[in-house]
């Protein structure tokens, strides 16, 4: 399972970089969305995948029995998803405004502030 997920994450990272390198700002944002999701998935997998074992203390016992899933990475991913959501919402508004102001969605035509 972990090996399969490793390949999936690698594929997602590749796809996101590819999308970010394209010229359209819409594809740029799609790349960013995939990128943040692949980072979240990476955290989830790298901390160890445990299925069907919630980190709950059984009734009567005073500590966890046996191997359970680590709840911390899930909390991290949850936080990261919320942050990514707000930041990407900003990015979507930004590209819309940029399109209105600059009049193009082509990154190669947005070079006025470079050089």
């Amino acid at each position: 399972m972990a090996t399969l997920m490793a390949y999936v994450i690698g594929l997602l990272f590749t796809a996101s970089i590819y999308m970010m390198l394209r010229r359209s700002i819409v594809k740029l944002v799609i790349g960013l969305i995939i990128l943040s999701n692949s980072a979240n998935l990476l955290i989830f997998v790298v901390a160890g995948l445990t299925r069907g074992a919630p980190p709950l203390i059984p009734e009567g016992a005073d500590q966890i029995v046996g191997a359970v899933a680590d709840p911390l990475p899930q909390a991290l991913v949850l936080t990261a998803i919320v942050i990514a959501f707000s930041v990407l919402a900003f990015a979507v508004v930004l590209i819309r405004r940029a399109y209105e102001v600059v009049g193009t969605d082509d990154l190669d035509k947005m070079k006025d502030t470079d050089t």
Partner: protein
Amino acid sequence: MNLAPVLPILIPLVAGALSLAFWRSIRMQRVIAVAGTALLLAASIWLMRLTVEHGFLVVEMGSWPAPFSIVFVSDVLGAIMILLTGIIGLAIAIYSLASTPEGHEKFGYYPLMHLLLAGVAGAFLTGDIFNLFVWFEVMLLASFALLTLGGERAQMEGAIKYVTLNLFSSAIFLSAVGLLYGMVGTLNMADIAQKVNSVEDPGMVTVVSLLFMVSFGIKAAAFPLFFWLPASYHTPQVAVSALFAGLLTKVGVYALYRVFTLIFTQDVGYTHTILLWAAALTMLTGVLGAAAQFEFRRILSFHIISQIGYMILGLALFTPLALIGGVFYIMHHIIVKTNLFLVSGITYRLLGSYELKNLGGVYRQRPYLALLFLIPALSLAGIPPLSGFFAKFIVVKASLEASEYVVAGIALLVGLLTLYSMIKIWAEVFWKKLPEHVTDTRRLNGEVRDKQSWAFYVPVVGLAICTMIIGLYGQPIYVLAETAADQLMNPQLYIEAVLGGQSQ
């Protein structure tokens, strides 16, 4: 619970919330802006005093013991950074009273400024690596909004690059945190530092450390990852530029200092050599980029990059003296660079342009302003007895002692080229006759006066005095940097302070 390490985060957050509550009253927002940042400065001075007295201040959130709770730690480096945040925050708040266009004030300029300061302060104080990521994002989101306030074409183009590269860097940071957690099973930085040496595969630790280096390198605008900076920093209104120039990239530098002294010291020969050459090339490319520019703020933006090189050089050499130099350099740089941006805003107000070809004749009309430019400019170039001289001197001396003669040579050459750029600005903006195509000289001649022009000059004079104090009265500040460097060189102290439970 000791409140001192939390106040610098709470004060701007509360001030930001209050200014949101007074959304319709610009006057109240202005009062809160100055009062809030003044309180922040007071809190940061208090924190500095306590930190120097005790060495470390640790606050555990919810009073859970250290590795399980999120901790806020103030060591001397953190306290220095907070103090600088307070100084710059107050200076920018006062300057904003005069410089911020009304439209920006109506669209939440002041709440965003407070939020940015809260994010910066949080990043400097947190002792938890994931929490650091969260504060980075708080800071970034505020900076995105500040950067695009006004919505001009250049701002949009700059913002797309700024947003993309910073989000990219955040994603790398997040992945690195995940991988690190997978290896050591903790997020508390002191706990990570303790456990990272017993990881089975030290090679993987180095790989993760490089992910951190790339991520913070983008945020700090180090070579070859700095391209977002000169594309965006000159686009927003000047108070925002100055705030970014002073604080944001330095958060990246601070994070590099933190993780590469505390956590990733297991393969110094490899990681710090990469940092060393990145630092040398950062200095060189930044200053050469500046030499090719003819726009006031773009020249200054490229100089941020070259100065970042000096700070990273201090870390890369990784000797006690070099770290002293690096910390000293950060203190000097934040004050001087902000001041230069503020001066560029005043000349913009006088003549309506940042292009050197549209500026001139300021010395004749405003000799005191010319002097106020000259102090930070010469300090940036490293002319004694101003702060930049001592900062450069320590860094160069440290690189000579470490037998890195090429890097020392580059550092000296970059100092010379910095002087060239500053002289270029001096000659074009202040000494040159006013070009004939510039017709609107009413402000320059004093025919039109701003009501609040004092607010332009108070922060500039204040920061210039800070530069002079660091230069002329350098011993106490050197001792402070020495204490900070001493703590950085002995991560054991940090670990004991956080995990040893001496929280009060």
